[in-house]
């Protein structure tokens, strides 16, 4: 479960094209909410325990509490300032170490991408580190005995894929409609446990999770568009002017 920047509330400094990320509102990454919802539905059918894992250099308690209110049983939070210097490699590495320390699992559900960085690398990296089967782009999942069966969408086909558990599944937004926690669930969640760890608890050094990549710049895109408003007395006149302008651009026309 990632605490992501709420991208719909981001502002750009028009002078420098820099994003104002300092103090930007954060929330649970929406794909992760779908993953949690799927975990809750699976538990409702088959029982079991739901554990959430979050890796964050900042305070993520609100997001962890939200997960518990939605139906998670216990939250593990790896909170360490050293995480600031890491990328998808380090995030996956730390998650893998957390999973190993917690113990056995049947199924790891994660979002196919995150709301803010949208890279989609952590899930596959984690499956590789844990040496378990992975299925990405999943829009439907069922557990049958010791196997998981998932439907995934590719560019030109949909596939039904079976894997023996333990396994890792990355879900898309289409898989379900996440619930909204009731007041009672929110109150009950305050009694559930949040386990906070630092890198030391995992015997992981800051060097070990050093970033393999380096961000040079993050800038709002330049949009050099003409921004011409086409106006006129009548719809016909406007349409005529617009059609002419389109043809004059040379993107369309006589062969």
């Amino acid at each position, binding site marked *: 479960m990632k605490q992501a920047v709420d991208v719909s509330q981001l502002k750009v400094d028009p002078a420098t094209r820099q994003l104002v990320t300092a103090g930007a509102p954060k929330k649970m990454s929406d794909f992760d909410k779908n993953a949690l919802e799927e975990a809750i539905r699976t538990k409702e059918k088959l029982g079991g325990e739901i554990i959430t894992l979050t890796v964050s250099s900042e305070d993520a308690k609100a997001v962890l509490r939200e997960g518990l209110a939605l139906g998670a049983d216990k939250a593990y939070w790896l909170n360490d300032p050293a995480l600031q210097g890491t990328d998808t490699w380090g995030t996956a590495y730390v998650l893998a170490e957390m999973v190993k320390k917690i113990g056995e699992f049947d199924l790891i559900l994660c979002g196919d991408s995150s709301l803010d960085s949208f890279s989609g690398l952590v*899930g596959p990296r984690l499956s590789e580190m844990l040496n378990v089967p992975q299925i990405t782009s999943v829009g439907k999942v069922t557990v049958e005995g010791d196997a998981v069966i998932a439907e995934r969408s590719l560019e030109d086909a949909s596939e039904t894929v079976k894997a023996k558990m333990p396994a890792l599944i990355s879900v898309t937004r289409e898989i379900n409609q996440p619930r909204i926690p009731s007041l009672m669930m929110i109150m009950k969640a305050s009694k559930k446990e949040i386990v906070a760890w630092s890198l030391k608890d995992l015997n992981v050094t800051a060097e070990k999770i050093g970033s393999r990549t380096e961000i040079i710049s993050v800038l709002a895109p330049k949009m050099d568009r003409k921004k011409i408003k086409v106006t006129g007395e009548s*719809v016909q006149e406007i349409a005529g002017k617009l059609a002419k302008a389109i043809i004059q651009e040379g*993107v369309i026309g006589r062969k």
Partner: protein
Amino acid sequence: MSENKGIWVFSESYDLILELLGKGRELADKTKTELSAILIGNNVQDKVADLIKYGADKVYIVDNPSLERFQAEAYLGILSNLAVAHHPEIILIGSTRNGKPLAARLATRLDAGCVPDCARLSIDENGRLVGERITYGGNAFARITFKSKPQIATVPARAFDKPEKKDRTGQTVKLDLQFESPKTEVIGRKPLTTSNVRIEEADYIVSGGRGLEKKDDIVLLEDLAKAIGGQVGCTRPLVEDRKWFTDWIGLSGHKVKPKLYIACGISGVIQHVAGIRDSKIIVAINKDPEAPIFEIADYGVVGNLYEVVPALKEELKKLLQ
């Protein structure tokens, strides 16, 4: 680290390999290194000559009946074993639904960094690969480079043009490898029934948003699209909320770059804009003069799409006759 040499390209999609070869050739010429394509599949031998003509200096080929379809562990094993043996400096992988997780796992095995979905690639003054990608939900472009090698980047379809075929020669290396056994089993497969060409391939797109009042009104867009030989697209709410379409254009959907994009009744939220940013010409028709779509459009009409779209169709038809 200095012993890493050469640029490799791989995709399970043949079209994407060609696009990667175009960009890869440019990067290889700049860094004066060798460009290799990795070709994996069944009965793919006849493609080798073309890969060389499209820019490869060397083609590593793994041709086996069991590799007819993409198989994550087998493909991953081939790529990682090859990379461990030959130490490439850069690996470019097609960013498909199968290709991106493959790249992530390959990077993990090789203890390497990975920059996904690069819309642009270049080499900086220190000889490092720099990838440029959309981030923060379409609000920004991040330029990212690497601190270790190999440098692995994934590239979406149509980010780069397919290069021209040239008369050139190259080397072929046939590999006979043991394949890693699969961890998953595909038990069903249904081809998607898309009646049209894929929207990414379309030169002209007429797209609808929440300004459309009912499903039947899509015909207005279809008529305009037909008049210019284009396709119809839509925004996410028409898929998610109204279920009128199965696919949308935007950051989380299809990213398009047509010659002409006509946005009808589309407000222009940043996630949608991120999917149309590379269009050559953007036309916006919206009744709300404050709609953000006008900020990113070349031509804007503040008006009722139910009047403007049919009128535009007639005018374009006249001019195109």
